[in-house]
C-alpha cells in the first residue's frame, strides 16, 4: 500500500466515523406551518397603483413599483430559543404586482409556542458573495430577481420603490425611484444597508401541521417620514450613496405587526 493510499483510507475512515457520530438524529417532531402575509398599505388601506396619494410632506404620489427581499427568517419561542428557516429556503421576493408573492408559507416549523419573528429586508452579505450556483429561486438574476440586482456593482437591490410625483423633476419625467441595496462589499468595505426587523407577539402555538398566519403591515406612507424625512422634491432618485442608508432606516421601521391569527 502506497503512502498516499494509506492516507486516503485513513481520511475516508475518519470522515465516515465523523459523519456517523457527530450529529444525533433529531427526535421525531410534529411540525407546523407558519404563514407570513405582507400587506403593503398607505394610510392603513391596501396600496393601489391606480390611486394617487399625498405623503407627509404634502407631495402627491402615485406608485408604479414596489419590490423587496425578505430573507433569513427566524422564529423565537417563548423560552427564548430560536428556529431559523434553513438558509437555502429562506429567500423571498415580495412584489406588489404579484399577489402570490406576498404570502410566504413556511413549512416544517418545529412544534412549540412562538412569540417573535425576525427577518432581514434584503439579502445577507454572505449570499451576496456566493457563486452563481447559490443564486436560485428568488435570487435568480436571470428570472425572478429581474431588476433586483446591480450589475455594475455586484449586489442585490433590497428594496425598490418607484412612482411618479409632480415633486420629482420634470426632466426626469416626474419619476422618482429609490433602489436601496449595499451588502457591505466583498474585497473592500462598501455601504451596508442590510436591515433586520423583529416583531414580537403574544405566544402562538405551532403544531401538527398547523400554525398562525402572521400579518405584516408595510406602511408605505411612513416610508417618507418614519425616521428621516424623505422629500421627493429633494431626493427623487436614490440608488447608492449616504442617503440610501437613511432610506433603509426608514423602510425597516415600516414593517409592523398586524393580525396574528391561528389556523
Amino acid at each position: 500500500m502506497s503512502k498516499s493510499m494509506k492516507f486516503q483510507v485513513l481520511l475516508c475512515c475518519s470522515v465516515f466515523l465523523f459523519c456517523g457520530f457527530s450529529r444525533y438524529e433529531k427526535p421525531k417532531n410534529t411540525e407546523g406551518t407558519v404563514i407570513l402575509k405582507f400587506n403593503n398599505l398607505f394610510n392603513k388601506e391596501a396600496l393601489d397603483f391606480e390611486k394617487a396619494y399625498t405623503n407627509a410632506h404634502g407631495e402627491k404620489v402615485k406608485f408604479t413599483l414596489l419590490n423587496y427581499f425578505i430573507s433569513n427568517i427566524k422564529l423565537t419561542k417563548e423560552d427564548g430559543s430560536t428556529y431559523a428557516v434553513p438558509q437555502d429556503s429562506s429567500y423571498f421576493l415580495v412584489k406588489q404586482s404579484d399577489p402570490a408573492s406576498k404570502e410566504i408559507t413556511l413549512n416544517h416549523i418545529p412544534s412549540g409556542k412562538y412569540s417573535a419573528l425576525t427577518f432581514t429586508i434584503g439579502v445577507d452579505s454572505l449570499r451576496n458573495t456566493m457563486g452563481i450556483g447559490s443564486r436560485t429561486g428568488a435570487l435568480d438574476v436571470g428570472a425572478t430577481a429581474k431588476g433586483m440586482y446591480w450589475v455594475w456593482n455586484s449586489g442585490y437591490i433590497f428594496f425598490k420603490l418607484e412612482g411618479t410625483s409632480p415633486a420629482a423633476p420634470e426632466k426626469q419625467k416626474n419619476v422618482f425611484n429609490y433602489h436601496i441595496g449595499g451588502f457591505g462589499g466583498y474585497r473592500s468595505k462598501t455601504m451596508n444597508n442590510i436591515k433586520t426587523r423583529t416583531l414580537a407577539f403574544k405566544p402562538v402555538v405551532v403544531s401538527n401541521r398547523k400554525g398562525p398566519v402572521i400579518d405584516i403591515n408595510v406602511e408605505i406612507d411612513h416610508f417618507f417620514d418614519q425616521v428621516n424625512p424623505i422629500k421627493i422634491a429633494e431626493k427623487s432618485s436614490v440608488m447608492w450613496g449616504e442617503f440610501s442608508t437613511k432610506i433603509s432606516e426608514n423602510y425597516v421601521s415600516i414593517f409592523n405587526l398586524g393580525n396574528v391569527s391561528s389556523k
Partner: protein
Amino acid sequence: MTIKNNPKRLGVCLTISFGIWLVSCTLAGKETGPSGLFSVPEGFPEPVYNLAVNPVTEDGFQLGKKLFFDGRLSRDGTISCGECHNQAHSFTHHGHGFSHGIDGKEGFRNAQPIVNVAWQNSFFWDGGVFNLDLFAIAPIENPVEMDEKFPNVIEKLKKSEDYPKLFKKAFGTEEVTSERFLKALSQYMLSLVSANSRYDQYLAGKARLTETEMKGLALFKEKGCNTCHSGILFTDHSFRSNGLAAEYTGDLGRFRITENESDKNKFKVPTLRNIEVTYPYMHDGRFRNLEGVLEHYADGVQEVDNLDPALKKNPKPGIALTKEQQGQIIAFLKTLTDTEFLNNKRFSKF
C-alpha cells in the same frame, strides 16, 4: 444514537466517504485535471477563479464561444460581446476610446482586454464585479451596450432552435438557466489565456530579446513600473492612481464603488500583456499610442488626490525617463505580444 439504526445516515456517510476517496484519488493520481481543459501555464500562479465549480469542458467552451459571438444577447440582435472585444486586439474594442454599443451609443469607458481573467479577482476598471460568473449580466443590461434584460435573454435562448441542444451537450439536459449560461460564457473567457509572447519564450530560454528590449526590461524593473504592473500577469490587481488628470471625464474610478475618499481617482492596474494591440490606452482611452503613455509617466503625471506613492519618489511627480529610455521600455512592452493567442483559431468566431 448510532449508525446502525439509521440506514439513511449510513448511506450519506458512505457516499461522502466514497466521494472524498474519489477526489483524493484524482488529486493523487492526476488522471484528469479537476479544471478540465484549463491548465496553468508554466510560471503562472494558481488561478483565482474556482475551476472546481466550473471545469472547462469542450462542449461548455463551444457553447460559451457561441454565446460570446451571438447578437441575440442584445436587445435588437445587433451587438455581441465580440463586437467590443475583438480577438486581434486582445479582445478590446479596436480603436475606440469609448466603446460603441447598441444604436451607436457611446459608453463612458474604454473596453478592457479579456485575457488571463482566471487570475483576476475583480472586473471593470473600478472592480465593481467580483466574480467572473456574475460579469456578463452587466454588458447585457447596460443601456449603452446591449440594452437587454438578462431574463429576456434566457427566454430567447430557451425558445431558440439551436441552444437547448447545446446546453444539453454542455450540461446534460436541455434546460437553459442563468447559471449554465453564465458558466458557459465563463468557460470561454477562462480559456483566453495568453502566455506565449516572445517575453515568455525568453523566460523559458526559447527566444532572445534584442539589446534594446533587454534595456527596456531592465528599466521596467529599475524604474518601478513593476511595482504596479507586477509579476507574470503584469498587474498586482490593486486599484491605484497613476496621476491622470481627473477632469478629462470626471470618472472617479474605484470611488464609485466604495465611496471612500481614499479611493478617488483609483483604477484597476491593467495587465500589459498584448499591450501593443490594445490601443487606445487608459480607462478613458486618452492615449492613442504607447509613446503617449510613456510621455505621461515621464512628464504628464498630475498631483491628483491619492496619487500613488510610487509616482511621488522624485521632486517632480512621475518617473524620470529620457526619450531614449521611453523607447526602450516600449520595445520591451512589445515583446508581450502573443501572436499565437491573437490568431488562435480556437478562440475565433468561425
